[in-house]
């Protein structure tokens, strides 16, 4: 009996060990990807800040009552831009995003523009209308793809296919802290734009409204690109953390199993000695 259980334990140890090797390898891959993802995220930040400043300067002197892309209209339908991952095994990364969308879109009619394979699969499966059939990727996403998406969103907004555009992505705060964020992309919220203190007369090359019409798609593309970079860094960080704790768990499990194995081995030896001694006494 002791022998059989010894064999069982040995098999368990071996299987946990091979799982640990995989989680460890995934952790290493994630760590090496993380550095580049963070660099990309950092370099995508300035655009949003400066673009907001520039747009607010342009808006400040816009005298039209109806400013394109800034004046809200009655909302009947929303479009969600949802950024999730390409793969699973990243803790709650994907499901957190989907939960946030479900909570936010309750009772609203909406269509989606999913980015990342997990998001595309999920919303295709749910039967929600997708804005575009292109399979947008998160890893290695380029600025060009973000411009295509931004144009698509602006086009849909102009044609009144939807009246609001929301972005759901994972914001990278620190290595240990990534939060899902839901933000409005269109109409651009004025409160987001910094107030300007001293309005002076501005020279416009074109009408302010026309300027905005041209610039808002660029701004959106920049926002999308930065959100994609943020999400990817979060995904990699969460995967690294998940794999780190999985490796630690496996390690703890192995030492527990080793202890049990040794105990079983000791038990078997003791029993054998007892049997031999008992045999000799007879």
């Amino acid at each position, binding site marked *: 009996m002791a022998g059989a259980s010894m064999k069982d334990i040995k098999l368990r140890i071996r299987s946990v060990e091979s799982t640990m090797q995989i989680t460890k390898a995934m952790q290493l891959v994630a760590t090496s990807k993380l550095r580049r993802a963070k660099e990309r995220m950092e370099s995508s930040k*300035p655009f949003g800040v*400066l673009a907001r400043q520039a747009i607010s300067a*342009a808006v400040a002197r816009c005298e039209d009552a109806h400013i394109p892309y800034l004046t809200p209209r009655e909302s009947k339908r929303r479009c969600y831009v949802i950024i999730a991952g390409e793969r699973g095994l990243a803790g709650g990364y994907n499901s957190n995003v989907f939960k946030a969308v479900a909570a936010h879109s309750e009772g609203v009619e909406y269509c989606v523009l999913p980015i990342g394979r997990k998001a595309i699969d999920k919303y295709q499966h749910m039967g929600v209308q997708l804005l575009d059939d292109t399979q947008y990727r998160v890893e290695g996403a380029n600025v060009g793809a*973000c411009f295509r998406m931004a144009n698509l969103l602006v086009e849909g907004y102009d044609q009144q296919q939807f009246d609001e555009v929301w972005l759901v992505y994972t914001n990278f705060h620190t290595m240990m802290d990534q939060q899902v964020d839901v933000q409005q992309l269109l109409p651009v919220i004025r409160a987001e734009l910094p107030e300007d203190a001293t309005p002076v007369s*501005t*020279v416009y*090359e*074109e009408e302010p409204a026309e300027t905005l019409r041209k610039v808002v798609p660029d*701004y959106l593309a920049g926002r999308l690109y930065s959100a994609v970079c943020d999400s990817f860094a979060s995904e990699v960080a969460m995967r690294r953390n998940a794999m780190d704790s999985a490796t630690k768990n496996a390690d703890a499990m192995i030492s527990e199993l080793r202890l049990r194995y040794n105990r079983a081995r000791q038990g078997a030896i003791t029993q054998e000695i007892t049997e031999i001694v008992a045999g000799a006494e007879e």
Partner: protein
Amino acid sequence: MATFHLQIVTPDRLVFDGQAERLVARTVGGDVCILAKHIDYAAPLGIGAAHIVDEDGKEHKAACSGGMLTVYGGEAILMATTFEWAEEIDLARAERAQQQAEEKLRKLSRDDREFVLASAKLKRAIARINAVE
């Protein structure tokens, strides 16, 4: 010469952040030159060659497309779709792109959706080639 604070930014990076004597860029209305103490200004950008003169008086050429140029309180922000310094441009690639776009344009009719895209591509390729030469 007097300088002003200039920031050039594209979605994927902060290209330039520092003092400049002069900025020349192509807006939708044509080339403009920004010098220090310029009045507040806003213009959408076209596609074309651009250059800056930095505080040491050295000229840096670039190709720039899309976005907006604003001057506000004496500080200039150029947010562009693409902004490449001349030394970053692959001339052979730009020339290939020019040829391809020209061929495409010959085949397309003027009201094709693709026509706009291809002509933008051609303009970008020409801007890059101009920036290098």
